[in-house]
């Protein structure tokens, strides 16, 4: 464990698109530039805001706010429905630009990515990273559009590079080194640090840590034994000092999809159709990664009249199968069975597969023929859909579920 700050030359660049989806819409529709824009997933006033432009944020509009409420704060707010293919295109353009500088690019989500120059060619390492940062900004303007801005952060590790990228939004470029680390931390709140919110903030407050500087000066044993109660505490001790602890990939553990229902008091048969649709999308996700699943988990958020207004609760159920499965039908059969014990009135449903693994072809199975037939049929349907378009072939049960639209792939970039 290293107690001193990392004074090495910063070699990590973090690129973060500003209010990504709203900016892309402002790029696509020039007349929206400079105006408050909010992106929502559904064309209703009750829907939640996914992204707001900087102009909307300046008026107090926040993510997660209902469009109806946001319009009270900002009457000129323009609500637009999300357009995932457009955002996916910009994501691929950003990745293409970043990959021109290094083969070691890691996209963290649809709107941010990291270039690690420590493993780049010597010629690239010899260049000034600040120059590269400005060059990437310029290329984004030239190659995607003049409304596209990004924040660039440069530091010795991924965490500080991300922190640097959030210092001067929009369109900033900042460098955090071992020399200015304390000065930068002095300007931040504890919750400005990525990964510190809610419970972790309370735990830190519990041991007298209220600022990033106090966090930085904290004893590693306190962090490990009292605050985080695991090795995570030591990792934070290193991370804050600029040492790299986040250079790792996590295997895919679950794949799933959730959906806020398009109506209240929906008959169970209609809910099941939507659940079936989610199972088809989940199956496609699992198979797209060449994996099979062992478990299915379903959840629902229910609502009920408590007498003092509408209340709600969370329900979930899960089950493990004896043999791995991959077909939409197998997922739906399990999900449907689990859903029998779900609350009557639900407003949100979700399904996910877990215990994902590579298919084990070596072991012969008692029902081998049946499985082989299932696999051939599923592969044939996937191939047709890949060739002629998504959902060209699907279950007749989901013919009327067009309202369950494609979701913006937040977080994981596996399905991009």
């Amino acid at each position, binding site marked *: 464990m290293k107690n001193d700050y990392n004074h090495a030359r910063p070699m990590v660049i973090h690129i973060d698109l500003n209010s990504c989806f709203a900016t*892309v819409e402002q*790029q696509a*529709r020039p*007349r929206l530039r400079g105006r408050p824009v909010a992106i929502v997933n559904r064309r209703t006033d009750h829907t939640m805001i996914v992204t707001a432009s900087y102009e909307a944020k300046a008026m107090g509009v926040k993510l997660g706010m209902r469009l109806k409420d946001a319009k009270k704060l900002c009457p000129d707010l323009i609500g637009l*429905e999300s357009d995932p293919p*457009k955002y996916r*295109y910009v994501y691929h353009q950003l990745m293409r630009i970043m990959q021109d500088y290094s083969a070691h690019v890691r996209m963290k989500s649809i709107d941010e990515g990291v270039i690690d120059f420590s493993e780049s060619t010597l010629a690239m390492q010899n260049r000034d990273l600040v120059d590269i940062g400005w060059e990437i900004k310029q290329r984004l303007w*030239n190659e*995607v559009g003049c409304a596209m801005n990004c924040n660039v952060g440069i530091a010795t590790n991924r965490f500080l590079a991300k922190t640097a990228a959030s210092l001067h939004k929009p369109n900033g470029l900042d460098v955090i080194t071992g020399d200015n680390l304390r000065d930068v931390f002095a300007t931040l709140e504890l919750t400005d640090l990525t990964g510190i919110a809610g419970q972790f903030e309370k735990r830190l407050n519990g041991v007298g840590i209220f600022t990033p500087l106090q966090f930085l000066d904290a004893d590693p044993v306190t962090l490990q034994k009292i605050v985080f109660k695991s090795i995570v505490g030591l990792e934070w001790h290193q991370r804050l000092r600029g040492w790299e602890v986040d250079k790792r990939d996590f295997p895919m553990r679950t794949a799933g999809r959730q959906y806020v229902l398009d109506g209240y008091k929906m008959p169970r048969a209609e809910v099941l159709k939507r659940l079936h649709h989610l199972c088809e999308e989940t199956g496609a996700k699992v198979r797209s990664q060449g994996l099979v699943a062992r478990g299915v988990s379903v959840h629902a958020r229910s609502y009920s009249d408590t007498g003092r207004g509408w209340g709600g609760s969370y329900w979930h159920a899960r089950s493990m199968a004896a043999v791995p499965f991959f077909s939409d039908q197998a997922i739906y059969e399990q999900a449907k069975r689990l859903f029998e014990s779900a609350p009557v009135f639900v407003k949100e449903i979700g399904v996910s597969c877990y215990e994902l693994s590579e298919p084990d072809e070596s072991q012969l199975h008692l029902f081998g023929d049946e499985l082989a037939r299932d696999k051939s049929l599923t592969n044939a349907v996937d191939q047709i859909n890949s060739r002629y*378009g998504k959902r060209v072939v699907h279950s007749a049960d989901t013919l009327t579920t067009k309202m369950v639209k494609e979701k913006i792939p937040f977080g994981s970039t596996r399905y991009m």
Partner: protein
Amino acid sequence: MDDETFLNERVDVVASFGTGLNPCAPVKFRRKNGRIIEISEIGLRHPTTQGNRMVHMFDVTDGGADYRLEFDAERLTWTLSLEADHS
């Protein structure tokens, strides 16, 4: 969101094909009602796939309204799919 009209209207388009990052650029188009829209700016061009078929989406404006033109690269057809006026 009520300011958007979704359409499926075949249109005649004058486009220029050149070199560079965006070699294809629609210049103006004529709608079914005979109205000619002169494009003042292309906001974004992004490709989408409908199965194996490539369709290029052009989000454009004439300064008064925003439009989306879809160019089907297999059938070589132009379709106006959106008209939006957020004034």
